[in-house]
C-alpha cells in the first residue's frame, strides 16, 4: 500500500512536469507563433520585438529557458502580469480563494444530493421514482452552464427580482451573490453524478450476492446499507473526484457570465489578453488541482476495491 502510494505520487509529479513541458511549448516557444508578437501586438516593429526578446531572455536556448522557467515556478516566482502590472501571485491568490468558496458550496450541495438521488433510483430500477429522477437529471444536464445562467437570470433576476444579476462582490462579500453561480454549477453537475451512482447501484442490485442476501431473508434496508452501498459507491467516488476537473471548466463559464472575481474568469481574461505569465500560472494551478484530485481518486479507488487492491 505504501509502495502504491509512492508510485502514485511519483506519477503525479511526472504528469505535472509533462504538462508543464506542453504548456511551455505552447505558450513560450515559436511553435504556435512568435511570443513577442503575441505580447507586443501585430504592429510592433522588429527592433522592438528584438529588444523585448533580449530583455525577457528569449534568445537563450529553449532547454535553458525551460529549466529557468520551471525553477521559477517551483520557488513560487510566477513572474509579472502584463495586464495587472504586478506580481502574478498577488493577482492569483485572492481569485483562487474566491473560486474555492464557490467550489466548496457547489460540492457541499451537489454530492449529497446526487448520491441520495442516484442510490434511490438505482435501488429499484425502472420504478416511477427511478424514471422521474432519471428524466429530471437528463433535463438539467442537457442545459449548458451558459444557457442555464441565462434561464436562471431571466427567472430570478429579471422576473422575480430576488437575486442580483452579477456576482462581482464590489461591495464586499455577499452570500446572496454566490447563490446563482453555485446553483448553475450544481444543476449542471448533479445529474451526471446521480446517473453514474444509479448505474453502479443498479448493477450491484442485479448481482448474485445481493440476490442471496435478499433470498436468505435479510431486511431490505440491511441489504442496501450493509451489502449494496459498499460496492455501489466505489464508482461514484471516482466520478466525484473527476468532477473537480469538470468544475474547473464550469467555473470559467459561470464566473465569466456573472462577473465573479474568481480564478476561472482570470484564466479566460489572461488568455484573451495574451497575458502569458498569468495564463501559465493559472493553467498550472488548474493542472495541479486536477492532477491532485485524480491521484486521490486513483488511490481511493484502489483502496476501496479489494479486487484491484489484491490482484
Amino acid at each position, binding site marked *: 500500500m505504501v509502495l502504491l502510494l509512492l508510485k502514485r505520487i511519483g506519477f503525479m509529479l511526472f504528469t505535472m512536469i509533462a504538462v508543464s513541458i506542453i504548456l511551455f511549448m505552447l505558450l513560450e516557444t515559436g511553435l504556435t507563433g512568435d511570443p513577442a508578437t503575441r505580447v507586443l501586438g501585430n504592429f510592433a516593429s522588429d527592433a522592438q520585438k528584438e529588444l523585448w526578446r533580449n530583455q525577457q531572455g528569449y534568445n537563450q536556448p529553449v532547454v535553458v529557458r525551460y529549466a529557468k522557467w520551471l525553477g521559477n515556478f517551483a520557488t513560487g516566482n510566477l513572474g509579472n502580469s502584463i495586464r495587472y502590472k504586478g506580481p502574478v501571485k498577488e493577482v492569483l491568490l485572492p481569485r483562487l480563494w474566491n473560486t474555492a468558496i464557490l467550489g466548496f458550496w457547489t460540492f457541499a450541495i451537489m454530492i449529497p444530493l446526487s448520491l441520495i438521488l442516484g442510490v434511490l433510483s438505482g435501488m429499484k430500477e425502472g420504478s416511477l421514482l427511478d424514471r422521474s429522477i432519471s428524466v429530471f437529471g437528463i433535463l438539467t444536464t*442537457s442545459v449548458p452552464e*451558459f444557457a442555464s445562467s441565462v434561464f436562471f437570470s431571466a427567472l430570478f433576476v429579471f422576473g422575480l427580482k430576488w437575486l442580483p444579476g452579477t456576482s462581482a462582490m464590489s461591495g464586499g462579500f455577499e452570500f446572496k451573490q454566490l447563490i446563482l453561480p453555485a446553483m448553475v454549477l450544481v444543476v449542471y453537475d448533479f445529474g451526471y453524478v446521480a446517473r453514474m451512482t444509479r448505474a453502479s447501484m443498479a448493477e450491484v442490485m442485479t448481482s448474485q450476492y445481493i440476490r442471496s442476501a435478499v433470498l436468505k431473508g435479510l431486511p431490505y434496508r440491511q441489504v442496501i446499507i450493509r451489502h449494496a452501498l459498499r460496492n455501489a459507491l466505489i464508482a461514484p467516488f471516482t466520478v466525484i473526484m473527476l468532477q473537480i476537473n469538470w468544475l474547473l471548466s464550469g467555473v470559467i463559464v459561470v464566473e465569466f457570465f456573472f462577473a465573479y472575481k474568481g480564478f476561472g474568469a482570470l484564466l479566460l481574461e489572461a488568455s484573451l489578453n495574451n497575458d502569458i505569465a498569468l495564463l501559465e500560472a493559472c493553467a498550472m494551478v488548474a493542472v495541479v488541482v486536477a492532477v491532485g484530485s485524480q491521484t486521490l481518486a486513483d488511490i481511493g479507488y484502489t483502496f476501496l476495491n479489494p479486487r484491484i487492491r489484491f490482484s
Partner: protein
Amino acid sequence: MTTQSTTEMPSASYVAVILRVIKSFGLLRESWVGMIGAFLVLFWVLVALFAPLIAQFDPNANILPFAKPGTMAASGHTFWLGTDHMGRDLLSRIVWGSRTVLTYAPLATLCAYTVGILMGLQAGYRGGLVDDILSRISDIILSFPVLVLYIIVIATIGASGINIVIAITFASSPGIMRIVRGLTLDLRNRDYVAAAQTRGESAWRIMLFEILPNARGPLIVDACLRLGYVIITIGVLGFLGLGLPPPDPDWGGMVNETRQMAMAFPYMTLFPCIAISSLILGFNLLADGLREISLRD
C-alpha cells in the same frame, strides 16, 4: 442480461449487437422518453438539412435592429423571433447555426471514439507496460481541465472548425479510453474470455469480439451523452468568444453577443439558449431511451 448475451453469442456477436441496436430504434416507440429525444434530434436534423428553405433572411444581413418577435420586414416576410442588435433575423441565424453544430459535433465524437476505444482495449487487456504508457498519456491530457485545454490550444492556434474537432478529439479520447479500460479490466477475467484464450484466439479478436460487445451497454449510453457534451463544448467555446469566427451564426456566440442586452431584450438571448438546450436534451433522452430498451430484452 450480461450472462445471457455472453453465453449466447461468442463469435457472431457483432451482427447480433448491430441488429439489436437497429431493433432498438424500431422499439423506441415503446419508450416515450426515447421518442421525445428522437423527435427533438430529428427536428434539428431536418432543420439543418432544409435550412435554405426555412430561413427567409440572410443570417448575416443587417436588416432592422431590435425588432420584436413577429415584426414585419419591408420585404413582406416576418421576423418570427425578432432581430438582434445588429438587425439580423434571429430565426434565420438559429436555423443556419444548427448546421454548424450538427456537422462538427458528430464528426468530433466519432474521431474521439475511434481513438479512445482502441487505446482503452489495449490498455485494459494487455496491461503491464502498454497500460502504463497509455494511462500516463491519458492522465496527462485528462489532467488539464477540458476547458482550460481548449482555451490554451485555441488561443494559441486560432479558432476554426477543424481546430475545434482536433481539440475535442484530443481532449475526449482519454476519457473514453478510461471507461473502456475499466470495463476491459473487469471483463477480461470472465470465463468466456478465458475460454476464448484457451481456444487460441488472437488478442485483437478477443478484444474486439469478446470484450467490446459486452462493454457496449455503458459505451452506447456514453456515446450519446458525449455527443451532448460535445455540443455543449462547441456552444461554450462560442459563448466565450473562442468558437467559429464571426459573423457566421453559432448558437453560443449569439448568446455572448446579446447577453449584455438580456435585461431589455431577453428574447435575443433566450432563443439560442432554448435551441442548444433542446438539441442536447434530444440526444440525452434518445440515449436514455435506447439504453432502457436495450436492457429490456
